[in-house]
């Protein structure tokens, strides 16, 4: 452990040289999350395209399942690009990625519960107060 720490400290001092080597050789993965600027610009471009697409869904007034599937598709793609590339999750060790990304997925269970619950509340309101929408 001590040896490893000394080794790493030495490496940090030569970080500058390392980074330049990495850039010169066009490597996409070096120390401290070094990726070519072009990658960020491409992702940025895609985020613009996807946002425009989801805006156009509303602009053209699409409805029903088509609207919902398109909105959710664009949303998931945008979220995925941001987390994977901008937040560098694609290059992190799986131990971190799973610890952070799995728990939010479980929120979907909560969503399902609340969908049933609100359907039930809606039904009760319609029965008790009349005037369904």
């Amino acid at each position, binding site marked *: *452990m001590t040896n490893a*720490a*000394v080794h*790493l*400290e030495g490496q*940090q001092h030569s*970080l*500058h040289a390392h*980074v330049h080597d990495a*850039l010169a050789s066009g490597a996409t993965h070096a*120390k*401290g*999350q*070094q*990726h070519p*600027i072009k990658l*960020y*610009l491409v*992702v*940025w471009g895609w*985020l*613009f395209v996807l*946002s425009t697409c*989801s*805006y156009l*869904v*509303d*602009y053209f007034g699409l409805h029903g399942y088509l*609207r919902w599937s398109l*909105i959710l598709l664009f*949303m998931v793609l*945008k*979220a995925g690009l*941001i*987390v994977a590339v*901008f*937040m*560098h999750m694609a290059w992190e*060790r*799986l*131990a*971190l990625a*799973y*610890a*952070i990304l799995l*728990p*939010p997925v479980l*929120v979907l269970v*909560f*969503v399902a519960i*609340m*969908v049933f619950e*609100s*359907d039930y*509340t*809606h039904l009760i*309101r319609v029965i008790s107060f009349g*005037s*369904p*929408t």
Partner: protein
Amino acid sequence: MAETALTNTGESPARIEGLRGIAADWSSDQRAFKNVSWGKAMMWIFLLSDTFIFSCFLLSYMTARMSTTVPWPNPSEVFALTIGGKHIPLILIAIMTFVLISSSGTMAMAVNFGYRRDRAKAAVLMLVTAAFGATFVGMQAFEWTKLIMEGVRPWGNPWGAAQFGSCFFMITGFHGTHVTIGVIFLIAIARKVWRGDFDVERRGFFTSRKGQYEIVEITGLYWHFVDLVWVFIFAFFYLW
């Protein structure tokens, strides 16, 4: 020595592929996140908890909207603006989305230049990010003012279900607060980058730990998260 090991962001120990590797990391002695510093791990865990907070807001909004028998106001119309005599639906929100995405792009590049120790570019890009963030908050203030003038209140509005106002102010208000805190955080770190604190490893006044360029990435994580939350708010609140 212990500090070096904890703040090191460099080479990771050998890695076993797949689930076996996760089990190996988690069952190993002392540290589960092998090549991730405490600062970055803590920011990720904070962001995870913040995800649950925003999830609860969006869920309560979904429940209110699905269970009400009164028609929900149409966001496409509520957030429309008349520009140059033309009535454009949801245009303000679209512009806000593009502003926030642009700020994420400049932030990602600031992180990159930080690790390359190009402190002028990193600091300038962080300040550009902060400027985009401030623009976003300004537009949100405009949007709030417009809606309040039109009579939207947390307990009612002229167009339909009363819960519209409370959901709107709660969700966008909490998000706007996050953006504001992010702008302050960005300016504080940009000042340190500009001054060269991380080149000379100047110790922080509060933690007395050696300053490292990794803090730029950690600030970036928070900023990208703010953008990420907006993606969900945009889809669920404005496009539903």
